[in-house]
């Protein structure tokens, strides 16, 4: 069996499962946030009763992150609904906006706070919950009904997915990042290329990446329609997880000779920086092929592109330069935001590098990745042409119907911010 099949079998109480089989599995962690939490709570109460208790308050993690820095009254009302529910149910893992516990983007916060552990089953009311596959666990996004069902029962039915394997041989050259690898894959297989399947990322190119870069890979499995992304556990995974949780966990490996739906192999050294053109993550082009395409906005942020690794990569290029396009920097979490002040390149903090380049630095949250209320930091409100480290460039995804969004790695976004045109980072790298 594959990693995914083994995790699902174990959580179904079976010795074996086959791809395509429907099984009921037990849940280790359920995560929800301010967008889907109120609806989930509504469904839970409707079906289990006004005074119902969640199946296990220790296993529920609530991370408001989407609409935090807005004047929108309903957005604040929704966070209040979460606050009330947490109090009523005795849920400890709540990261409360406006207090010291506030974290920001749920997928990065889950990892930082030790809620992502090898071998476990994590469901979240957000499609990018697949990010946590980077820790060798089964993690996927669900809707309010499924989450409401889990709140009451701790269980859910899933169809066991087949696994597509993507192997990156060799290590990445200095101008490539995980975002280039995943945009390469999505360009090859299409936005429906992995529907209902697991995407496993393997090879030296993947295992030489730090955990944040691995999260970027798994984060975008959903952009190819994947049910989950997964990467086998190694010392890098164990070091990260053990530093953040004392909970025991079980590492699950692929069985020798396990069956894959397909295997695709890449030579990491031969790949080049890529960009996804409007309005779909599979509209891949080489960054150099789009050389000269004018942009009016650059954006570095989100669960997939707002981690400290992303900002270090961007800052190396922005250091000592001025941006020619309006540039927005949005740390995923408060921990990343704090590191912007402490992480230094040649004695200058990333925060200083960004502000001196003319970029605007915002507060930790999902911000403009999904548009959001009109007053959201960095939102596209007109005919902007934006190059962004986020994960989706569907029509109007970042706010305006007239806007266009190109997806790229933090290096390519920073290089493009400096020139005001889409730019291969090799052109500006020292």
């Amino acid at each position, binding site marked *: 069996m594959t990693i995914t099949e083994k995790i699902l079998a174990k959580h179904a109480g079976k010795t074996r499962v086959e791809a395509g089989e429907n099984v009921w599995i037990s849940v280790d962690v359920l995560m929800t946030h301010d967008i889907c939490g109120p609806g989930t709570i509504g469904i839970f109460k409707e079906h289990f009763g006004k005074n119902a208790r969640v199946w296990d308050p220790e296993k529920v993690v609530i991370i408001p992150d989407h609409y935090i820095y807005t004047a929108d009254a309903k957005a604040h009302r929704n966070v209040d609904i979460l606050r009330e529910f947490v109090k009523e149910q005795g849920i400890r893992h709540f990261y409360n906006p406006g207090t010291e516990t506030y974290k920001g983007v749920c997928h990065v916060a889950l990892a930082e706070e030790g809620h992502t552990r090898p071998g476990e089953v994590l469901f979240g009311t957000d*499609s990018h919950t697949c990010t946590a596959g980077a820790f060798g666990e089964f993690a996927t996004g669900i809707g309010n009904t499924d989450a409401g069902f889990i709140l009451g029962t701790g269980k859910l039915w899933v169809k066991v997915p087949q696994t597509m394997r993507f192997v990156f041989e060799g290590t990445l050259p200095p101008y490539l990042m995980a975002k280039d690898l995943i945009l390469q894959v999505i360009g090859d297989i299409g936005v429906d290329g992995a529907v209902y399947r697991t995407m496993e990322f393997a090879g030296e190119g993947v295992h030489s990446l730090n955990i944040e870069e691995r999260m970027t890979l798994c984060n975008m499995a959903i952009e190819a329609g994947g049910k989950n992304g997964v990467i086998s556990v190694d010392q890098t995974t164990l070091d990260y997880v053990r530093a953040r949780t004392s909970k025991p966990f079980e590492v699950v490996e692929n069985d020798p000779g396990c069956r894959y739906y397909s295997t695709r192999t890449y030579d990491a050294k031969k790949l080049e920086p890529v960009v996804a053109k409007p309005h779909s993550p599979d509209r891949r082009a080489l960054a150099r092929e789009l050389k000269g395409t004018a942009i009016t906005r650059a954006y570095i942020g989100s669960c997939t592109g707002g981690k400290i690794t992303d900002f270090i990569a961007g800052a190396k290029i922005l250091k000592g330069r001025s941006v020619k396009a309006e540039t927005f920097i949005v740390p995923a979490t408060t921990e990343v935001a704090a590191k912007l002040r402490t992480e230094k390149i040649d004695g200058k903090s990333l925060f200083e590098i960004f502000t001196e380049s003319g970029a605007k630095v915002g507060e930790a949250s999902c911000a403009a990745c999904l548009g959001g209320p009109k007053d959201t930091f960095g939102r596209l409100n007109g005919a902007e042409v934006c190059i962004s480290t986020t994960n989706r460039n569907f029509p109007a995804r970042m706010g305006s119907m007239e806007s266009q969004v190109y997806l790229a790695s933090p290096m390519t976004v920073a290089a493009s911010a400096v020139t005001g045109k889409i730019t291969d980072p090799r052109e500006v790298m020292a």
Partner: protein
Amino acid sequence: MENKISGKVYVLGNDIDTDQIIPAHYLTYNPAIPEERKMFGKYALCGLPEASQGLPFGKIPFVEKDADRSGYKLIVAGKNFGCGSSREHAPLALQQSGIEAVVAEFYARIFFRNSVNGGYLIPFETPARLVEKFKTGEDVELDVRSGILKNKTQNTEFPLKPLGDILPILEAGDIFRYAGKK
């Protein structure tokens, strides 16, 4: 689950994502509150670019200006319907707008699960692409049990794939009633 769904069809292309079905700035409405739940029907599919609004013509709004619901009962679409976010507000919005079933080549998995487990609409799959066989506004009739979709305007009919695993959940009404029965 009703056996026959009849009314006007709205036709869409491939990869209709959840941001097009219900743009993110409307997600501040809470579906658990009845007055706010209704708003999702009003804004259903308002994120479609003009050219995609009602194929093959385009520029046909799914919900008329100032209306609370759509005049369409059924959607025929291409591949990967409902891709993107996990927002259950997407099948909810279609249901609130008056849609009872979608017929697509295949679905993004979270949208599919949400439609079935929440009992919002019936997500039928078609073995052959039907986008070019229907025009927005035509009269259609879907026989749910036999899985036959009729285009009454053109007097044509098409067999759909059996509902399979999801039929018992759809018949029960939603995942709660299904699990309760088991």
